[in-house]
């Protein structure tokens, strides 16, 4: 039996979980494992996504191999897409992403593609959850911040401030 490590994120799963699974097992087994990490009773049909991929794996697919000795990154969610609103200087742009999309990828889309910043300016801005002070880490999957059936998130793109005084 070949044991593989997976960095698991998902709906109602707190933070990033490091899980170990039989590498010959597939999506069905990972869904069972993910349910054990989920907080609370949640009903519905969950899908497994590879990080950054919009299409879910099929039920009979095997789990992804780890690359360069590092764990594969996987997401489990009921939403096929998450609608994301990003507001900057009073203007809101929206786009839909797969739930296994990272905050870093959404931030790049927002700053550079949606609001036309240079990469240098983009690196001085960060996504902050609208109405909160929380700024999710760049490797956080957006699906771990959203629930079904809303499948929606709203962020502000805010400049990074100096710490002084």
């Amino acid at each position, binding site marked *: 039996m070949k044991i593989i490590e997976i960095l698991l994120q998902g709906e109602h799963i707190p933070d990033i979980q490091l899980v170990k699974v039989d590498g010959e097992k597939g999506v069905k087994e990972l869904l069972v494992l993910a349910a054990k990490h989920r907080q609370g009773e949640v009903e519905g049909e969950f899908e497994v996504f590879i990080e950054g991929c919009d299409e879910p794996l099929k039920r009979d697919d095997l789990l992804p191999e780890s690359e360069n000795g590092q764990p594969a990154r996987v997401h489990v969610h009921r939403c096929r897409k998450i609608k994301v609103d990003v507001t900057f200087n009073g203007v809101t742009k929206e786009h839909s992403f797969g739930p296994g999309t990272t905050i870093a990828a959404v931030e790049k889309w927002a700053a550079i593609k949606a609001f036309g910043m240079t990469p*240098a300016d983009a690196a001085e801005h960060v996504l902050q959850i609208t109405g909160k002070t929380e700024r999710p880490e760049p490797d956080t999957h957006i699906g771990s911040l959203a629930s079904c059936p809303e499948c929606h998130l709203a962020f502000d793109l805010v400049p990074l*401030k100096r710490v002084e005084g």
Partner: protein
Amino acid sequence: MADELLPPDQQMLRLHLESGRFRSGVASGWWRLVALKWPYVSIGVTARDGIEYSFRFHCQDYPRTAATAQPWDLEADCPLPPARWPTGRGRVVLAFNPGWHNGTSLYLPCDRDAINGHDKWRHEHPALLWEPEKGLCKYLGIILELLNSSDYGGRRGA
């Protein structure tokens, strides 16, 4: 000594170093565990120019009490000389200031020593405060962001 016989602060530090959040940072090439010698843990963080800066965190009463971090010379096992500290145009040079607190702490709201006497930071920079449930990963994420920002400009003495 088995983990269950360790005091709670040491147990929690070990748990966080084995967590998915910490491993995700390692897998991304952002940081790596260098040494753990209680109450210190040394962790290397990679900047956008490929330089790895090491930080020695003092973790007494972890994670209830915030850690404090000092740039560290791993080879000489001593504080990093000021000329080898990171520098930048604004945010970075303020955070990594060898002239503040004798260079024993970073000037950041998440740092145990720096937050003392800076209560206004609690409402000015809420996103940069220490969070016990995230612990070192929160502090490392803030260092990582600074070292990979546009503001970062390499080593002071370069």
